[in-house]
């Protein structure tokens, strides 16, 4: 790799594009407000003569009213900040490819960990599918993917790990592969409560676009935990005792290893 002959500065950085020759970093020209996932900012230049860029938590008193209107995903509030001011903002995410998308009076649902930032003109809501967030309205957003994103049209069935998101089509349903389940060992596995995960797919139907990536490394998903936590409230006494015993047995199994 050859180094650029001159380092970048605010004048040579692109206004709203990937950093030249680098899919993994994106430069966003900020003038106003932008919702951003924490930990995705790698550098920034305040615009000359401006007050610079401020990063405020969503709970900050100065922006609460504005946030309440735009951000209705209570599980994720701690992972997001609002960047306001003027300047150039450089974003990156685990060495994933970063792309900018424009939404016009549309809706698009994305894996929560793959959404980096979105315009304050868009509205964010929690999807019914755990771990996914829905953007509604008009504006641009930044998303990351392991390798380039593949756009596919329904009908298509997708491995849950390979799903980046979907636009305009109805939310997916689960599809269970009959051939897998009825196979000799599949049946034995079913009896033993052993599921490989491969027999379960997301089934997309209707008109729209599905976004795919090569499957991710398994990472601890803090959002999943939050989702589960939030659903514990809906359980009755019997459900709670059952859950407790499940967790107990899992814990003792982990400790024995």
């Amino acid at each position: 790799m050859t180094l650029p002959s001159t380092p970048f500065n605010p004048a040579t950085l692109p206004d709203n594009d990937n950093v030249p020759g680098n899919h993994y970093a994106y430069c966003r020209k900020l003038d106003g407000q932008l919702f951003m996932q924490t930990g995705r900012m790698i550098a920034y230049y305040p615009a000359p003569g401006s007050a610079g860029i401020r990063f405020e938590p969503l709970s900050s008193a100065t922006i609460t009213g504005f946030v309440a209107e735009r951000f209705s995903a209570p599980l994720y509030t701690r992972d997001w900040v609002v960047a306001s001011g003027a300047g150039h903002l450089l974003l990156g995410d685990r060495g994933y490819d970063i792309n900018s998308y424009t939404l016009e009076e549309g809706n698009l649902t994305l894996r929560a960990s793959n959404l980096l930032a979105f315009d304050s003109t868009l509205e964010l809501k929690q999807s019914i599918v755990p771990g996914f967030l829905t953007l509604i309205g008009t504006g641009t957003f930044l998303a990351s993917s392991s390798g380039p994103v593949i756009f596919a049209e329904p009908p298509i069935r997708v491995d849950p790990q390979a799903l980046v998101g979907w636009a305009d089509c109805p939310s997916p349903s689960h599809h269970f592969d009959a051939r897998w389940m009825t196979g000799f060992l599949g049946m034995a596995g079913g009896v033993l409560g052993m599921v490989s995960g491969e027999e379960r797919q997301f089934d997309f139907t209707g008109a729209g676009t599905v976004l795919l990536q090569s499957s991710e490394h398994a990472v601890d998903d803090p959002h999943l935990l939050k989702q589960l936590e939030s659903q514990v409230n809906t359980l009755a006494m019997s459900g709670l005792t059952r859950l407790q015993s499940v967790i107990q047995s899992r814990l003792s199994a982990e400790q024995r290893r």
Partner: protein
Amino acid sequence: MAFEQINPKVVSSAVAPGREVLSRRGSMLAYTGDVGFSPVHTGPGGIGGLAGRAVAGEHVSMMVAQGSGTVYYGFAGLYVTIIELDGTAALSVEADRLVAHDAALQSTVVFLGEGGGLRGMVRGAVSGQGLFTTQLHGVGSVAVMSHGGTIAVPVRSGEPTTVDPQAYVGHVGSVEAKVSLNASWRDAVGRGSGEAVQLKMSGSGTVYVQASEQKIR
């Protein structure tokens, strides 16, 4: 061509009756059409082959895609390379590097290296491969994964090619791999180049090398 490269990390394959595709379990990303997946338990050679595989550590759970449609394959965000086999030469590859291949290809587990013995053992130990490797014969396509993509390096007779064991992915053709110990007293005192153990490939064919010294987990 049976497989199509969608992007550096994803390949797609058409599946039709009589044109099944074998793949590593968990490598299916998506599919269109009416395709079903079922686990494959016995490798080639029936139970004996399976036992051989288990002993060899060359056992990676595979599944077969049947029906008609298009399937997308990829694994853990690793790079995927398509290798076309024309039937004249076999591909030797570590089983856990296989993403998918045409079901028409014959796969066998072979003992590595002539004579085996200490040399083979050393080679297995240094390349992390164990003493056995998977060989694919016939006409068809194979999708192999690597860190950062593969480079095809030609091996010509009389002109041996040497590769780092950790960067070795697989090879096609009549190629013999030998471990060469290039160690000196420097290695013994921990001041070596870190490249003391090398794989010397001789014969004629192609060796595939990845741009990293990381193994597949």
